[in-house]
C-alpha cells in the first residue's frame, strides 16, 4: 500500500502535481505573503489545478506571493536528511536556528495561527508548535537556485 507523505509547507509551484491531473496529489495554496514579508495563512487551502498553475506561471515569482504546499519529496529534496529513523526535513531546523541566532525571534503568539494543513504538515510533525512559530517567516526564494545567484 502506498504511503502518503506529509505535506511540505514550503513547496514550489512546480513541486507538486496539480489537483485533478492524472496522479494529482494536491498542490495547494496555503498562504499569502503580506506586505511585511510574513505569511498570512489561509484557513482553507486552495487547490491548484493545471489551469491555475499555468496562470500563476505568468507571474515571475509566484512563490514570493503565495505559500504552496505539496507532498514532501523526501529523498527527492536537497533538504531531506536521511537517518536511522527514516529521515527528516532539515530545513525547518535551520530556519529555527537562524531566527534564534538573529536575536529577533518574534514574540510567541498566544496560540497557534490558523493553518490549513497542520494535521498533515511535515514541519509540524517534526517540531510541533516550534515550527509554527517560525513558519510564517518563510518564503521560497527561487533566486537562491538561479545560476549566479
Amino acid at each position, binding site marked *: 500500500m502506498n504511503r502518503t507523505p506529509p505535506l*511540505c509547507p*514550503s*513547496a*514550489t509551484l512546480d*513541486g*507538486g502535481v496539480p489537483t485533478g491531473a492524472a496522479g494529482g496529489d494536491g498542490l495547494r*495554496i496555503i498562504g*499569502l*505573503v*503580506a*506586505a*511585511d*514579508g*510574513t505569511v498570512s495563512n489561509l484557513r482553507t487551502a*486552495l*487547490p491548484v*489545478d493545471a*489551469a*491555475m498553475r499555468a*496562470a*500563476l506561471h505568468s*507571474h515571475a*515569482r*509566484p512563490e*514570493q*506571493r*503565495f505559500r504552496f504546499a*505539496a507532498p514532501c*519529496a523526501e*529523498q*527527492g*529534496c*536537497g*533538504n*531531506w536528511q536521511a537517518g536511522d529513523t527514516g529521515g527528516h*526535513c*532539515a*530545513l525547518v531546523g*535551520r*530556519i529555527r536556528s*537562524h*531566527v534564534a541566532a*538573529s*536575536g*529577533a*525571534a*518574534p514574540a510567541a503568539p498566544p496560540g497557534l495561527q490558523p493553518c490549513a494543513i497542520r494535521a498533515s504538515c511535515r514541519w509540524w510533525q517534526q517540531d510541533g508548535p516550534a515550527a509554527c512559530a*517560525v513558519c510564517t*517567516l*518563510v*518564503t*521560497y*526564494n*527561487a*533566486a*537562491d*537556485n538561479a545560476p*549566479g545567484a
Partner: protein
Amino acid sequence: MARFVVDLGNVKLSDEEHNGIASAIHAAVIGHLASSTNPGLHAATKTLNHAGMGFAAPNPVATRAGKAAVAQTAVAKVAATRAVKAVAAKPAATSRAARKSG
C-alpha cells in the same frame, strides 16, 4: 477577515457544476492576489538570503532518479531586524566579490 460568500439560494447544481464554480472562484481570487505586487519583498528576501543560512541545493542524485526534486530553499524573513541586515551586508558583498573573481 476577508470572506466572500456567493449565495445561490435553492439553485440545484450537480457536483460537476459545483466544482466548476468553486474552481472559477478560486482562480479569480488567486488571480487578483497574484497581480498585486509587493515591491519591498524581494529586497528583504535577498538581504537575508546572503546571511549565510546555508540552504541546501536540490539533490542531483534524486533528480537523476526521476524524482520530483524540489528545491526547498526557503528564506526566513524577520521583520524589522536591522541587526540581521547589517550582518547580511558583508556576506553579500563577499559573495559578489567571489563571483567576480571566480
